[in-house]
């Protein structure tokens, strides 16, 4: 009789799929477009075209076709600008933080979050240009020696915005491209004809050598660390557009962190909404699982709590000090925009906090979809309520006024939403919408390890 113990056998998980099967499933979004895809693109293009017509109407007739007038000189366009900058904030932030913390569940989420950032910031960047008035001379803002003898005044927050948004668009586009590099090589190897040539050009000759992977991972980590302060600075600068003025309701030290928190809230909600849409559209139920929604729901809960705290602090300080003109802005907002205020508080605070406390609701897709969409409706209203009431009731009561958006402004804002959706739809058709190599890397590192009487899943990791 022998006392020798059998060696524990490490095995591949029983559900493990071949690399080809995973490639086929995750790259199914690149298959030939269906009729419904064409219909969606046509619908979104029509909405964008309508927005362009409305913008053309504004260019040919002048700014009077918008609802903005003294004293409310910032309206739906700047609301849209702040809203879209906020949305752009979280995609890269979520991706970077999860990369740096090496959270393995991040992998199927990264690509759509990073793409969302790029398209949101591109849409956001259009709004100040649309709002300019004489849009055709927008290049006056660009600093270059010219015969006009003029130079942009860098003391203007508009120039800070332009610098920050330019840095963020380039930075987040490079971050998206960096994350896609191995996937582009993978798509190159599976495609033919002109598409192969395009992907080969974008893949830059990537072969996946051990040296390339080692440098790639270090570069990804460094990029993630570099992009976070840029993302925070962009929304802080947008907050300074308001906070460095002496307009009641705006001149507040809490504005930059409050804006950043609000931006992360709307961005996280948008990432979840996109995850739900992508999961349904490309049949990715196996890769975007309940765990992913559960974890994102927890993040939404935390950020919603932080937003509620920041909003409470802002209102409580004003209420306690009761400085007349500051309080007048709040009173006017609560009186004139009471239902909008209610939707904002329910959408950004009460509803996400209540629902995301419960695991069952965090894992319920219809509930998540409703909550995250309402969060972003609430965030758009929040941006509106920051801008319009403060401008309506400034320091001089004889110059008080109000604002209602015109059809032109509403059309341009709807077109912005359609434009974002169109860009995302096209992106998902031409590029892998899920980080294939990231997901496959996780699969390759999984194993079943016997422990006692059980066989448990384990993951090979590096220090």
């Amino acid at each position, binding site marked *: 009789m022998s006392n020798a113990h059998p060696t524990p056998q490490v095995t591949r998980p029983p559900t493990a799929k*071949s*690399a*080809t099967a995973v*490639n086929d499933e995750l790259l199914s979004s690149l298959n030939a477009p269906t009729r419904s895809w064409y219909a969606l693109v046509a619908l979104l293009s029509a909405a964008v075209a309508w927005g362009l017509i409305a913008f053309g109407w504004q260019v040919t007739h002048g700014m009077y076709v918008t609802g903005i007038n003294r004293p409310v000189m910032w309206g739906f366009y700047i609301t849209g600008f702040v809203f879209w900058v906020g949305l752009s904030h979280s995609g890269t932030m979520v991706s970077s933080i999860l990369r740096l913390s090496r959270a393995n569940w991040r992998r199927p989420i990264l690509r759509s979050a990073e793409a969302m950032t790029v398209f949101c910031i591109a849409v956001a960047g259009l709004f100040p240009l649309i709002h300019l008035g004489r849009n055709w001379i927008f290049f006056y803002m660009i*600093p270059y020696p010219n015969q006009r003898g*003029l*130079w942009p*005044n*860098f*003391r203007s927050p508009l*120039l*800070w915005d332009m*610098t*920050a948004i*330019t*840095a963020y668009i*380039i*930075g987040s586009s*490079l*971050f998206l491209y*960096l994350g896609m590099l*191995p996937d582009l*090589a*993978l798509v190159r*190897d*599976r495609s033919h004809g002109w598409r192969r040539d395009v992907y080969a050009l974008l893949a*830059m*000759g*990537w*072969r*996946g*050598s*051990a*040296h*390339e*992977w*080692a*440098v*790639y*991972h*270090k*570069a990804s980590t*460094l*990029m993630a660390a*570099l*992009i976070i*302060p*840029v993302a925070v*600075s962009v929304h802080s*600068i947008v907050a300074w557009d308001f906070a460095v003025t002496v307009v009641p309701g705006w001149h507040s030290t809490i504005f930059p962190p409050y804006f950043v928190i609000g931006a992360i809230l709307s961005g996280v909600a948008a990432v979840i909404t996109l995850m739900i849409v992508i999961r349904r559209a490309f049949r990715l139920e196996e890769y975007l699982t309940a765990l992913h929604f559960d974890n994102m729901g927890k993040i939404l809960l935390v950020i919603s709590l932080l937003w509620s705290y920041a909003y409470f602090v802002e209102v409580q300080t004003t209420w306690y000090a009761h400085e007349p003109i500051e309080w007048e802005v709040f009173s006017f907002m609560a009186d004139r925009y009471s239902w909008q205020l209610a939707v904002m508080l329910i959408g950004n605070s009460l509803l996400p906090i209540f629902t995301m406390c419960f695991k069952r609701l965090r894992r319920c897709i219809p509930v998540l979809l409703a909550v995250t969409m309402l969060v972003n409706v609430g965030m758009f209203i929040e941006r509106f309520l920051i801008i319009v009431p403060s401008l309506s009731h400034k320091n001089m009561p004889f110059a008080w006024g109000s604002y209602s958006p015109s059809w032109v402004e509403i059309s341009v804002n709807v077109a912005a939403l359609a434009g974002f959706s169109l860009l995302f739809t096209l992106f998902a058709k031409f590029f892998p919408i899920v980080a294939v*190599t990231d997901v*496959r*890397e996780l699969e*390759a*590192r999984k194993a079943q390890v016997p422990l006692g009487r059980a066989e448990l899943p384990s993951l*090979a*990791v*590096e220090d």
Partner: protein
Amino acid sequence: METIGIFADVESAGRAVTGLVKAGFVEAQITSLTSVAYPDGVLVKVEQRSWFRWVALAGAAVGAVAGFCLAAGTAWLYPVRTGDKPIIALFPTGIVTFEITMLFAIIGTMVGMFLEMRLVSRRPRLYDPAIAEGCIGISVSFYLPGEVVVCRRGDADEECIGAIANLSAREQRERAEGIMGQAGALRTITE
């Protein structure tokens, strides 16, 4: 000259690398080609030091100077006199300098990464599309007899040259193909 052996799984690829090292090839001659990243040492060992961060740092330094010159330098060249405000305002200069610094650091990271990876090669390099479908490629580069392959800090002389380097490149290739075939290579391709 380079030869790639294509393997169906990590285990056989790992066996091939072990066989190659035992036969006298040095680690610096061997690399893996994979469509997913494996932890260091699973297939091959790679040099852990990298220099692309210096390019990122240089980018940041250039960005800091460019940002400062853009905000402060041009304000000095094209003064906009507004009340009693200073011509060069510290707060806006700080913001613009920060943004341009970060932008150039990010661009420097990308440029440095591509340079260190030696990508954007004009000459097509040896590759097999089966790697995208989960196969593992083990690539061996051959050098002229006696030629120093590469010396890393702390490497002994024989590790730099490799016992195999006494053979001609053709003999090295034949030996490598034989070892990879024994380890279970599906096929080998040679440049």
